[in-house]
């Protein structure tokens, strides 16, 4: 469903992504790991269409369509979802109202009628139970005054409401205790099907105990330097990122 080919992107002339290649098929779960500053969030942002980043080379296809040519709201309409590393606050806008707008805008994009209030409420109730989210949280202003954990859970709750084809989770596990991680992972696993895919961006392998990835990629200096199975995540955990860093830096020196 997603084909990233030789993607280069940066900001203000500074190159951050240095030729990413990645293929994600329906039903797969991919994990991207890597040290801080390696470009994981940048990759997620570029895929979601944040305008700050400039794509200088390469292409991305999403279900055969040119993803990079679409504005971010169309990408969402096509079924791409990003759970933000740092969810944004919008004072005065109730979370429920926001989600309802999002659900209906995406339906509109797909040529569907807006969801009626009753159906929407029913869907909310179901997903709330699954994500262990309290009604009172949803009537509060979007993310305003939410704890770190509440914000992350709210992201996954929105994912559950929007049912995307490709969900990108950017460090959704950071700041969560083990119970919250289980809830979040449970939500993600419920979404998994043969038609959907998940791209999990994480720093630690902990989350991957609950969301079992089919592939693990290591991002370093804006490039995927290693790909492997779940085992790679365990190896990273054991040896730390330094072993990858050393390996790469040495080989780069040799090549020069």
């Amino acid at each position, binding site marked *: 469903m997603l084909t990233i080919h030789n993607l280069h992107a940066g900001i203000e002339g500074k190159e951050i992504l240095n030729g990413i290649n990645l293929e994600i098929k329906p039903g797969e779960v991919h994990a991207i790991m890597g040290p801080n500053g390696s470009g994981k969030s940048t990759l997620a942002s570029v895929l*979601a*269409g*944040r*305008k*700050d980043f400039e794509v200088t080379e390469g292409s991305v296809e999403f279900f055969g369509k040119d993803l990079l040519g679409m*504005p*971010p*709201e169309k*990408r*969402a*309409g096509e079924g791409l*979802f*990003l759970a*933000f590393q740092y*969810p*944004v*606050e*919008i*004072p*005065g*806008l109730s979370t429920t*109202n*926001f*989600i309802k*707008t*999002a659900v209906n*805008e*995406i339906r509109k*994009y797909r040529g569907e009628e807006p969801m009626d209030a009753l159906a929407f409420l029913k869907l909310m109730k179901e997903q709330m139970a699954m994500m262990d989210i309290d009604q009172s949280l949803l009537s509060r*202003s*979007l993310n305003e005054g939410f704890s770190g954990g509440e914000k992350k859970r709210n992201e996954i709750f*929105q994912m559950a409401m*929007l049912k995307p084809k490709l969900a990108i989770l950017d460090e959704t596990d950071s700041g969560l205790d083990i119970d919250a991680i289980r809830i979040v992972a449970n939500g993600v696993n419920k979404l998994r099907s043969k038609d959907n895919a998940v791209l999990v961006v994480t720093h630690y392998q902990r989350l991957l105990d609950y969301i079992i990835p089919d592939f693990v990629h290591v991002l370093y200096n804006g490039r995927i330097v290693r790909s492997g199975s779940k085992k790679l995540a365990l190896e990273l955990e054991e040896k730390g990122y330094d072993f990858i860093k050393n390996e790469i830096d040495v080989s780069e020196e040799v090549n020069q």
Partner: protein
Amino acid sequence: MNEISTIEKTVLSEYKYGFVSDIEADEAPKGLNEDTVRFISAKKNEPQWMLEWRLKAYRHWSRLAGEEPKWPNVKYPPINYQDIIYYSAPKQKVDLNSLDEMDPELRRTFEKLGISLNEQKRLTGVAVDAVIDSVSIGTTFKVQLAELGVIFCSMSEAIQEHPELVKQYLGTVVPITDNYFASLNSAVFSDGSFCYIPKGVRCPMELSTYFRINAENTGQFERTLIVAEEGSYVSYLEGCTAPMRDENQLHAAVVELVALDRAEIKYSTVQNWYPGDKEGKGGIYNFVTKRGICRGESSKISWTQVETGSAITWKYPSVILKGDNSVGEFYSVAVTNNHQQADTGTKMMHLGKNTKSRIVSKGISAGVSNNSYRGLVHVSKKANNARNFSQCDSLLLGDKCGAHTFPYIEVKNNSAIVEHEATTSKIGEDQIFYCNQRGIDTETAVALVVNGFAREVMNQLPMEFAIEAQKLLAISLEGSVG
């Protein structure tokens, strides 16, 4: 491209109410002198005392010799007061026995405005008066209201039918010498609404007036007076629109509210006068004096305003808190886009003991507009235990617009507690992108953020109005980001 830099592509959505109705008008000759005042008074068949009152105001105004207030943070070329038509009335039967007799063109005008003067619409529970150009057109629900002793009619009618009430209260809150535009209004006001709520009556429906400027080169000078007797309650709504015209038109209204013991008046305005085009051509000069007095103990006056229109807004709905334990409130959302300028705020004058006031002002600026909050909190010597809380927030869309806050605090009594908070924020690219990522386009995202920002004020509006006002906010900022 940077999200915020694209804000410059501001395009004002087409002003929806910009049509001109082809209604035959009965007009005064252009210009202003004593004869104009006499003409207006004669047209309205007014008693002598009313004419005298007007002339006194006119003479005061002419002594001011064009000295308009200079302190507001707004700029405009000098107004030629001799180039304005001060009276324009739709030519039609004066006596409307039933609304069915209304000029069909006029009726269509109201339909376009989404106003129903139809009594069938009674379910909405809103009694409507409509002032087009200078004259009040029809007041619905008159009979039902009369049964409760509530008087809701045009000012002209009140002068004829209830002269003793008008005489007793007119000019007591805003004297004819109050300010330049108030004096002008007192001399030439042509109509407006009058409400009287008798002792102990809770007015069962919202009273509402729609103001519409239609004719060319005319000014609109309406005068509204609301008197709430002991223990009564009324909620009053006011809406305004005007056609799109290249020249500026002057609107100088005066509103006076009087609340006696334990009475409560809630006054809401959704102001959508034509703001001028993208280049700043045309639009209404909205120079309005609104003031209420809490004359009785434990009385309450609450102003809520949503200001989206006008080329220039100059307006400070105020409350004089004379009665002990009285309460004044001011809730405001002022939006400026393109070349609009707004200098608006409130005055809370604490005279009585244990008086409380609350000010919530939300300014939203886009384009190259300028939005100023100007507020005075005055606590007099005798006002023991006065309390004020002010919250003034500004939201900027883009970096070519301005937001300014001018809070003035005068406290003459040590027991007073006066709190003022102010914030300025920019609509964040992050907020817009977050919405975009959820499938929400930029226009809708801006509307969500702005309505969130203004929510505390919007919540004060009566339900039907709140929805209308929300749409209005979205429309007036359409195209201002993205």
